[in-house]
């Protein structure tokens, strides 16, 4: 096979891997997008909730094997989906007792709108969860392996009988589940009464109060949903990627990069932002050593916030 043919094969392989991983990044970005993009709360611990989603799925499926009746191929995905509502409750409570002290109406209009304490409080939560995770779960890398993890679909390339790209089945299923969850959330936010309440509260809290909306409750629910969605994405990542308690840090920048890239305040934008980051990460492996894969993401993130902090679709606004 010609050198060019080989390159095309490698390129397509990276492109497809980027799309699959990008779909999962997209879902976790949607979770953060609700918290950061829509509610403008900085949650530094978002990566740690992703990690909790992973461990929740792990203990449910592997550790205690509570989903044995679903079989090894379906169980992990159902486990990941269950992580959503469970972590929703955790997020809701956390907001109720801690985050609400530094966010929302109480700080609107103050210096920097409370960002300073938010960053620090959630950094503290991140440290507790990371290291608490280390105490509870141990430092051994774990994984939620499914029979699909080691299987792949072989997609022949039409131009050459010998050329083909491989699609890991676990990643394909995880990507599909991600898309379904993201679409479901999109309809929840845009069509349902709850979604409209949340958007109203995020858009103009005081106006929403005058309309009789319980804004504090809306914030708690939105925060919980954001955490739950990211936890589902964590459960999905766990099916193809080994993890340990510190893994959140690798993902937190990916998530912020995706949300900022997609333009703050847009759920769909966050998904496409995450997708873009996945593609950049996978395609960068064509030219850069794999060890620098994560460094690439940090560089891309810096470029995004410096060149176009309003995102690809956003509009620059600044009031003096």
């Amino acid at each position, binding site marked *: 096979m010609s050198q060019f043919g080989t390159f095309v094969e490698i390129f397509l392989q990276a492109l497809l891997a980027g799309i699959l991983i990008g779909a999962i990044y997209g879902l976790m970005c949607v979770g953060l997008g609700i918290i950061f993009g829509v509610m403008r709360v900085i949650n530094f611990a978002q990566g740690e909730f992703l990690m909790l989603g992973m461990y929740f799925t792990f203990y449910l499926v592997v550790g205690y094997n509570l989903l044995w009746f679903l079989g090894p191929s379906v169980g992990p995905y159902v486990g990941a989906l269950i992580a959503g509502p469970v972590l929703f409750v955790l997020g809701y409570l956390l907001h109720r007792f801690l985050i609400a002290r530094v966010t929302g109406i109480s700080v609107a209009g103050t210096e920097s709108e409370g960002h*300073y304490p938010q960053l620090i409080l959630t950094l*503290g939560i991140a440290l507790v969860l990371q290291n608490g995770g280390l105490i509870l779960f141990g430092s051994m890398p774990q994984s939620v392996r499914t029979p699909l993890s080691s299987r792949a679909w072989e997609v022949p390339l039409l131009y050459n009988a010998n050329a083909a790209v491989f699609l890991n089945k676990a990643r394909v299923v995880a990507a599909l589940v991600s898309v379904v969850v993201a679409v479901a959330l999109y309809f929840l936010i845009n069509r349902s009464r709850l979604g409209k309440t949340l958007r109203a509260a995020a858009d103009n809290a005081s106006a929403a109060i005058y309309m009789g909306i319980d804004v504090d409750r809306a914030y708690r629910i939105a925060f919980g949903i954001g955490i739950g969605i990211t936890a589902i994405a964590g459960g999905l990542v766990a099916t193809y990627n080994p993890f340990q308690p510190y893994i959140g840090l690798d993902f937190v920048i990916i998530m912020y990069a995706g949300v900022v890239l997609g333009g703050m305040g847009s759920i769909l934008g966050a998904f496409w932002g995450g997708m873009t980051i996945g593609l950049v990460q996978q395609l960068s492996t064509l030219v850069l050593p794999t060890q620098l894969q994560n460094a690439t993401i940090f560089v891309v993130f810096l470029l995004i*916030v410096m060149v176009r902090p309003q995102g690809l679709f956003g509009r620059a606004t600044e009031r003096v």
Partner: protein
Amino acid sequence: MRSRRNLYASLIAIFVIAAVWIGLGLVVNNSYYQLMFTLVPIWAVLGLSWNLLSGYTGLVSFGHAAFFGLGAYTVTIALVQYDITPWLGIPLGMIVGTLAGVVIGYPTFRLRGHYFALSMLAYPMALLYVFVWLGYQEVSLPMKREAPAYFMQFADYRVYIALAVGLLVVSLLISLAIERSRFGLSLVAIKQNEPAAEAAGIDTLAWKMRAIMLSGALAAAAGGLYAVVQLLVTPDSVFGMLTSAQALIVALFGGVGTLWGPLIGSAILIPLSETLQANLGDKIPGIQGVVYGIAIILVVVLAPEGIFWRVRDWVRRPRAVGLGQVDPIAPPLAAAAPEPVPPQRQPILIVANLSKSFGGLRAVADASFAVGDGEILGIIGPNGAGKTTLFNLLNGFLPPNSGSVTFAGRELIGLKPNRICRLGIGRTFQVVRAFARLSVLDNVVIGAYGKTVSEAEAVAAATAALAQVGLTGRAGALAGSLTNKELRLMELARALAGEPRLLLMDEPLAGLASHEIEDMLEVIRALAARGTTVVIIEHTMRAMVRLAERFIVLDHGAILATGHPGEIVKDESVIEAYLGKKWAAIRARG
């Protein structure tokens, strides 16, 4: 804050702490405690370095591990590969840290708030992976038996304690010098209100750059000494998240924006976490991080500004909040009524074809006008007419899409607000932008920095400006405790302290009661009588008609009419656009 006695007290405190620390270090002979006695000052230095940038300016850095790690690796690589002693390696690392400050600061200072914090996090994370990729996973410093002192290796551990304390004393002295200079006050002004600082003539980017360079150098020095003490450097231990976190945790826990904060935080938290780590670390591996995490959560919830401020507020509790009496407004020097027709004046500000659009909205459309030297010009128009945008274009907050602004023969477009302020254009804001936690005098002193060289001159100019607006008696009060009228007068004094030739006032009468309006008008007239040109945006027509010599009416960003107030209020198009039927009715009656 400015008294000499305070300075001596701080200096004495620094040297007493250093002496006691070294004294205790001499007594301790358990090697584990000796290590702790060394680590506390090192982390305190890192905290001080973080405080220098983030504590004073309020721009939270999550990335101080970048500087710390670069310092540690500079020392290590210099020793391992080039046989350079840490005595040179640490200064070398400080140079690297300073350069990193330039490289990181210049692009990152374009960002604000959370974007700044997140971007700062990305630097050490990227460096961590780069150093792993370069193959520096675990580098140990070789023992140099032939000349240990030359290579900063001492059998007696107490030398390290002395070195660490020495670095701490230097850092404390630098912080003290900054706190007491215009450097520190400028940084605090940036923290409290960056646009106001910029409008008051402070080159905010230049001060932030100086802060990050100095901060980078100090953090690198701490990192370098850390490498020497630990004899082993890994990317995780110096570039890791916990290192960045440690920098801000010790500062936050102890107190933000004061040199004592990082010292207090470090002295409490480092022994606590190290003891836990040593006693429980093998059984409960993450205990250190959990303790730190809980410490910050508690600080944010219970004492958001840190222990130092909590204790200080508690100690000073009995003192009454109100400081001094409200001065009656100083009598105006000359209360000349506006002349019916403005005399022939030299134009001081010429605006030509100035336009600004936001998306599809034309906020200012092809505006051309001139302001005469010494006149009081009123700009009126309905809400959304583009009045404030016009001011933002004039003093450099916004770049126009087209057009030119010439002030005393100089083109202003493209200059930053602080440059424009120094050229002689002062500004007050629609919503008062005070530095709420500074005293009234300090607020005004910041306005005087543009025109003065020494601190004494600045204080003198500020005192004079306060006298001019009649706020002398409130000089010591915190800006946050002023009434609305006093705030407006203070902001006016801040603008006056820069001795502007032209003053842009955005709704100076908003929210004032009618008798307060009279006082404010007197002050403005007195200003004009001294030769300051004043351009005012205001809605209070009755006051404006008596104050201004000329009106410019803006509507939908364009100039609708220009002329004598008496004529303007009769102009039918103006009445329709702005004054409305009510005014027509009043006029008919009157």
